[in-house]
């Protein structure tokens, strides 16, 4: 298992949306362990407060619905108020949706697009504005990084899910677009495209051997990802070690997208 890189994010101020549990919380744990101060945004207030209690004094929680501009702006404002700067934002908040094409309702489409796409736009805009302000305040600022969370579903689809993959495809392109627009502001923008990860969101899959098998035979490494493995990638991309990487989606998929057929049983 990966080891923390001590001091990698020392002194940085980082916002994580959807940070109350799952992979979002794993990002926060890793970044705090590597020296960052984090502000978690999430609609799950109870989970959020429990996460902050576990993370200690380096963490704060702000109730935040990423579909509402005022709440996203308030989240970034809290990071600026508490830490005087914003260095990294991880736009992780998102929902899954299991609705096949013919059954997808207008309401479901709008709900998923609002959270997964508009939410990433609003988060990215507010984070970038806070980073531009940070650059004005700090003459030796090393630059910022925005990490959007996409999915392998940004480029592949499965039966029974329409809005989710489309929303993640949009995150993939939004990442490229943000990278181009923010390069001159010393802000890199990248995305992570995880494969199935062992989180609460995937609890139903983990409990069902048949569902699990479908995922494992289409994964070269023959297992689902641990949240910590995805967090390790976010930590790298958010750090200066990825200083020449921008506009890219890095697929953390255990060898899924490259596999034509199936792994042997």
């Amino acid at each position, binding site marked *: *298992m990966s080891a923390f890189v001590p001091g990698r994010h020392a002194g940085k101020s980082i916002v994580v949306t959807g940070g109350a549990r799952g992979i979002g919380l794993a990002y926060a744990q890793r970044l705090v362990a590597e020296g960052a101060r984090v502000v978690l945004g999430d609609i799950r207030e109870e989970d959020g407060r429990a996460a902050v209690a576990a993370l200690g004094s380096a963490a704060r929680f702000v109730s935040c619905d990423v579909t509402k501009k005022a709440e996203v702006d308030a989240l970034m404002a809290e990071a600026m108020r508490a830490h005087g700067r914003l260095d990294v934002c991880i736009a992780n908040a998102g929902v899954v949706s299991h609705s096949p094409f013919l059954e997808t309702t207008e309401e479901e489409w709008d709900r998923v697009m609002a959270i997964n796409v508009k939410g990433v736009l609003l988060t990215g805009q507010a984070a970038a504005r806070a980073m531009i302000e940070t650059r004005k305040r700090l003459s030796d600022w090393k630059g910022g990084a925005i990490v959007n969370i996409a999915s392998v579903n940004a480029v592949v689809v499965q039966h029974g899910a329409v809005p989710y993959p489309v929303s993640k495809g949009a995150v993939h392109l939004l990442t490229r677009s943000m990278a181009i627009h923010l*390069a001159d502001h010393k802000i*890199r923008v990248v995305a992570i495209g995880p494969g199935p990860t062992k989180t609460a969101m995937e609890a139903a899959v983990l409990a069902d051997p048949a569902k699990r098998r479908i995922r494992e035979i289409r994964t070269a490494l023959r297992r689902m990802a641990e949240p910590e493995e995805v967090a*390790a990638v976010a930590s790298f991309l958010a750090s200066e070690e*990825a200083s020449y990487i921008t506009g890219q989606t*890095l697929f953390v*998929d*255990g060898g899924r997208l*490259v596999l034509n057929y199936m792994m042997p049983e």
Partner: protein
Amino acid sequence: MRLKDKVAVVTGAARGIGFACAKLFAEEGAKVVLGDVMTDIGPASAKAIDPSGQRAVFVKCDVGDPKDVQALIDTAVSKFGKLDICVANAGINRVKDFLDVTLDEWSEVIRVNLTGTFLTGQAAARQMAKQGTPGAIINMSSCNAVMAIPTITAYVASKGGINQLTRVMALSLAAKNIRVNAIGPGSISTDMVKVVAKDPSVRRAQMARTPLGRYGEPEEVARVALFLATEDSSYITGQTIYPDGGRLALNYTVPVKDDA
């Protein structure tokens, strides 16, 4: 020290990106074997990393020659006891219009870039499989694996081949706990690029296609290699990461700021 007690082999390590990888790996605690055909500067490159010769050694290696490649891997084992990480970085380029490329020129580039990466990866993976320990193989691709420049026919073809070779290797070696990934740099400030960038029109073209507005440094590519060499990338295999300053994302061009 993220590579404490690890042993790494880097081909094309006498200078440029290969040297930066070997140097960074050594700084992170690894013992490194540097392979290269450049016997004039190779030994000094190894010495620059470790003057004592205890943690870094140079081996003359033409990656297109299976005997040389085997000797390189064998050196890691005889000198440092094992092999954990292999960076197949050696590569060459020849600039010529497509219509004028001779078979010999084509074959020369394919031999080093593509066949050399295959031979290096196979020899490294055989050693790792024999040990039964986890391994990481990192192939040096290019953003020219997925885009193209009309005057470097064999180079572009070889790098496209390296991306696919990386995928095959990742699938073949997954069960042995060997991860295989590639790095596809954009315009990096190496001797190879500096030669062509002397031409202001080339430099302007490169910067117009680079949103970050600057060349990458070899160390910035080495840091990606370090990430791929460590357990931080434990769920990544078969991928190519592009440290390209944003090039692949860019449809048209960006304004070139410094035209000097």
